[in-house]
């Protein structure tokens, strides 16, 4: 587990995580400051930004003092110089999730944040081109939200009514 970076805001909680050197829990208010601190601490790369919709799993384990919200944005960071890997989990909000974009710090998140916007409808404040990336521009809804149906093909059993 890594030491807490010097510039890290006080209300960001650092815990141990599976297969990494630390998980930071942030809120939209201190997310950008937390990532700034990480960057100053030698994390050169932001590998990925992804979203999770905790609609059906709100009771997940979170450290004390972190209020669970429906949407979570997770950002993975890698330090090549220190050979460390951390991630930041942001409680992004319930109805209209919105967090700061990391584009000014890590241009690599351009596509990833667009994907999170496309799939979850999370708004990234400061992103230069927040358009859909995987879905067509006129698509309605955000497919990876838990309340977005998958659709299904009915299975026909022997006794069931036939197609005719």
């Amino acid at each position, binding site marked *: 587990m890594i030491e807490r970076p010097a510039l890290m805001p006080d209300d960001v909680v650092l815990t141990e995580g*599976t*297969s990494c050197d630390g998980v930071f829990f942030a809120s939209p208010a201190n997310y950008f400051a937390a990532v700034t601190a990480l960057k100053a601490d030698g994390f050169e790369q932001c*590998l*990925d930004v992804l979203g999770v919709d905790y609609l059906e799993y709100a009771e997940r384990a979170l450290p004390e003092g972190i209020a669970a919200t429906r949407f979570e944005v997770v950002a993975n960071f890698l330090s090549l110089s220190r050979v460390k*890997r951390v991630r930041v989990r942001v409680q992004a909000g319930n109805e209209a999730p919105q967090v700061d974009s990391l584009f000014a710090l890590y241009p690599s998140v351009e596509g990833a944040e667009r994907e999170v916007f496309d799939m979850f409808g999370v708004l990234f404040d400061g992103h230069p081109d927040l358009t859909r*990336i995987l879905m067509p521009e006129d698509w309605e809804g955000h497919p990876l939200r838990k309340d977005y149906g998958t659709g299904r093909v009915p299975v026909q059993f022997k006794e069931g009514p036939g197609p005719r």
Partner: protein
Amino acid sequence: MTDQIRSVDRLDLLAAETTEGPQELRPREEISPDEIGREIGAVLRLQGLNLDPNAIDIENPDDERMIINMGPSHPSTHGVLRLMLELDGEYVMRTKTIIGYLHTGMEKTAETLSYVQGGTNVTRMDYLSPIGNETAYSLAVESLLGIAIPVRATWIRMMMNELNRIASHLVWMATNGMDVGSTSMMIYGLRERELILAFYEKTAGLRMNLNYVRPGGVAADLPDGWEDDIALLCDSIYERTFEYDQLLTGQPIFRERMIGVAPITAEEALALGLTGPLLRSTGVAWDLRRSMPYLAYDEVEFDVIVGTYGDNFDRYAIRLNEIRESIRIVRQCLEKMPAGDYRSQDPKVTPPPRARIGESMEALIHHFKLFTEGFHVPAGETYVGIESPRGEIGCYLVADGGAKPYRMHTRAPSFTNLQAVPLLLRGGTLSDTVTVISTVDPVMGEVDR
């Protein structure tokens, strides 16, 4: 009614269904200088350069510029990548990559499949390196399960991963040869890859999309006589890499197309989140197999190949030499392959042997439960990243304690690497576009997922 039918008379209806609207590259007149600056290369902002994008490119009057589409079904885009290029004569001024044409919602699908079935889903993402996807996924599941994997399974996984790297790089050599006009390389690359696919078929029963690496181990033990197959395969491919040298490396036409074309600096590569051969071509010796060893990579000897200039040729040379290094690793696997189980004997994740099912009720129940409901994974979240042929492939997994992942996300190296394309293409010619897409080596199945 008839005026609503799409036809040549109603081009607007056609356009409405084929356009991506705001995702597309728009003419300079319509956008702000900031946006032009970003499309020219976002990382330029990092270097503190205060460029006026309108000032740099204008040598000719504006009417010389045009925006054209390349793709999504262009043979050199290796799938369904669509590029919108702003051309000034033959020179590329701005580029925008438009993706999503192969989006099949695999992350959503993963939420409806159990952990046992998940492997069949992830293996189809990066279809040129299925083993890499499966390994990342399996390691992520295992990190949450907390089960120990037998040593032999780890070594089999490592060997298969390296064979996969060879196969993937061979396809790359083949298609790259094709892109620069060397059709013979196309045939040779695929011929050698066939040796590996034949070995896959012998081991796993399938040539591609194997679902061979599974949570708990691998699907089947190596077949009888695998040592001979591997030795033969290593020898023949190793010899033939020197034939590629003769065919391509020293070839003046090939060198003209490669050397000095589309260079990228280490600073830009890091800022753009590039990994794999693209990052190493800039001189950054970052290879997860060496830096953060997983499987048993700390027990084998190999060199991390790095480049200097970050140009097309470096990316080519790195991949060619990585084939040789991978052969070195496979040969060590051949020597050191430990005996033992090829999968964990934990009855929770591994089905009982066929013979036991006929005689033991408990084994039958385990078998039935495993393939209907699947095993339960303790609640938690994890991210495991490994070195695929294209860079870091990662699997982020959220488990809620049930038999299906609550959320599965794949960090696809091609997705991120593709962001370098606008920067790499800028200022180059249209003909270089083809080689640049090729050396970035995106696999669209993984970009769009």
